[in-house]
């Protein structure tokens, strides 16, 4: 039985932190694009591992090691099923989206890209899907090109740009962490597959996987990266999905224990994916926690989560557009964006706005949200950002709007 998202109060009861107060006011947590809060089953799964079966994985033959390995690999299968991978071999655990993208840049990039090749990115990338390619470009003398962004926050002529720059790799975000824009990645991948040679495609799904159903086979991408902590799971875990046939051709990223079959003094033989890419003792507890987060999301239902996210976003857009002198970056259409809204109020610095909202218990982000080139594109230094999760309510959006009005009263001379 799928739970209805109308039961938001029931969901809120699962998140212990939502019951605390901040500066004497109930916490209104609207910084979910930075990291989400964790439900009780996730916290319990991590404690249970440490209290009942803490052991290293894949190496002991004692009972605890077997239980730990089963739980760790169980989480991998659950993640594989959650995003529609062919099998668990396609799921590599990393420290986060950033490390997942760096893994591709270092391993795949070093082997498959050569001087003069082009990597195509977009102006709306998070620094984590920009800086690894800048570093690779310096090492390998490859070119970086960018799909531009329209005033409404959509990709500008993406297909034309692909045809013009003929990239070896197209690496783009599924959902902008600033604009909330949901990019038409499925269409772009379909289009790219008609080309000869076909570009490889990496999708940064950090802001997508928590908010709507994602199926990597249906998308047809080569790589898909996302983070546990933005989808109700613990920090310190990320996922890199890679097509198995590509992973098999890629050299290891980090070397050490866990990733080898045989070791001699001057050379080694490596394990098959995914283990080839998981050197050292992994973050066992937090991978198990991610498994619990996936179970929680499945229980709530990703379709329900998307519907509710859209409802909250539409409500927030309508309310925020009603505030005088407030500029929202990105589309007005909630159907084309996820629950991330960045904005500025004329005459108020976003840091000042965030401080005054904090006094009311409201947590929003202010700054450039690790997307400085996009802010430069919109000719601003910084913005304030409210972002939603399945436990947020319309009442909280009303509190946000009241908080913004209070900030205007305090900071603006009438």
């Amino acid at each position, binding site marked *: 039985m799928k739970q209805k998202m109308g039961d938001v109060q029931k969901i809120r009861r699962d998140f212990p932190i939502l019951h605390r107060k901040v500066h004497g006011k109930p916490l209104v947590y609207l910084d979910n694009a930075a990291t989400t809060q964790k439900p009780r089953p996730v916290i319990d799964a991590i404690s249970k591992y440490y209290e009942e079966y803490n052991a290293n994985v894949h190496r002991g033959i004692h009972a605890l090691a077997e239980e730990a390995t089963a739980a760790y690999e169980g989480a991998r299968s659950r993640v594989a099923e959650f995003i529609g991978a062919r099998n668990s071999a396609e799921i590599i655990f990393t420290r986060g989206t950033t490390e997942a993208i760096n893994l591709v840049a270092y391993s795949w990039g070093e082997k498959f890209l050569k001087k003069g090749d082009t990597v195509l990115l977009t102006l709306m990338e998070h620094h984590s899907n920009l800086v690894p390619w800048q570093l690779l470009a310096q090492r390998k003398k490859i070119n970086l090109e960018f799909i531009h962004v329209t005033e409404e926050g959509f990709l500008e002529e993406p297909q034309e740009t692909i045809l013009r720059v003929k990239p070896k790799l197209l690496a783009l975000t599924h959902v902008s962490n600033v604009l909330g824009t949901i990019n038409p990645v499925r269409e772009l991948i379909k289009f790219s597959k008609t080309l000869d040679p076909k570009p490889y495609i990496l999708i940064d799904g950090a802001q997508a996987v928590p908010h709507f159903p994602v199926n990597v086979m249906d998308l047809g991408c080569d790589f898909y990266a996302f983070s546990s902590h933005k989808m109700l799971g613990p920090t310190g875990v990320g996922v890199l999905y890679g097509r198995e046939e590509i992973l098999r051709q890629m050299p290891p990223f980090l070397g050490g224990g866990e990733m080898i079959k045989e070791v001699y003094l001057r050379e080694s033989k490596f394990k098959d994916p995914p283990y080839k890419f998981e050197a050292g003792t992994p973050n066992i507890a937090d991978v198990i926690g991610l498994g619990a987060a996936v179970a929680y999301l499945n229980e709530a239902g990703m379709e329900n989560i998307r519907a509710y996210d859209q409802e909250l976003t539409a409500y927030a857009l309508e309310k925020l557009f009603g505030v005088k002198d407030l500029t929202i970056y990105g589309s007005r259409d909630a159907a084309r964006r996820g629950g991330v809204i960045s904005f500025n109020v004329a005459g108020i610095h976003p*840091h000042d706005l965030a*401080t005054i909202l904090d006094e009311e218990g409201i947590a929003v982000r*202010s700054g450039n949200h690790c997307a400085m080139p996009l802010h430069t594109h919109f000719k601003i230094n910084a913005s304030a950002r409210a972002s939603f999760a399945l436990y947020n309510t319309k009442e909280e959006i009303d509190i946000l709007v009241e908080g913004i009005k209070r900030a205007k009263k305090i900071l603006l001379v009438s």
Partner: protein
Amino acid sequence: MDIYRDEMLDHARNPRNQGKVANPTFEFHASNPLCGDTLDLQIKMQGKPPKVSEVAFQANACTVSVAAASMLTEKIKGMTTSELSKLDEKEVISWFGGSLTTSRTECAFLPLKALREATRAGF
């Protein structure tokens, strides 16, 4: 918590010493990587021993940074280089009555950062 007190807001809304100094002895462009805010500080030293005779700043920054710059430029007039070098974070925090949260202290320190860099480059 009460960062936005009247004194602070007065400095932010009506910043003292905003503008430029002709032929400055020291100048520095400081930025806050957290938000991309920028602040240009210019100082002219005159006399024996040299003391701050003129000081001005231009900022594209938040209320806290602008207020801190306004207060800093008021305080340092007439100071010698050794007095300038003694100005520290603790004093800047005291200007705000201890009301700054940890994340906002960086905003308040932006003018001090500019002052230090400016004078260091000038020595």
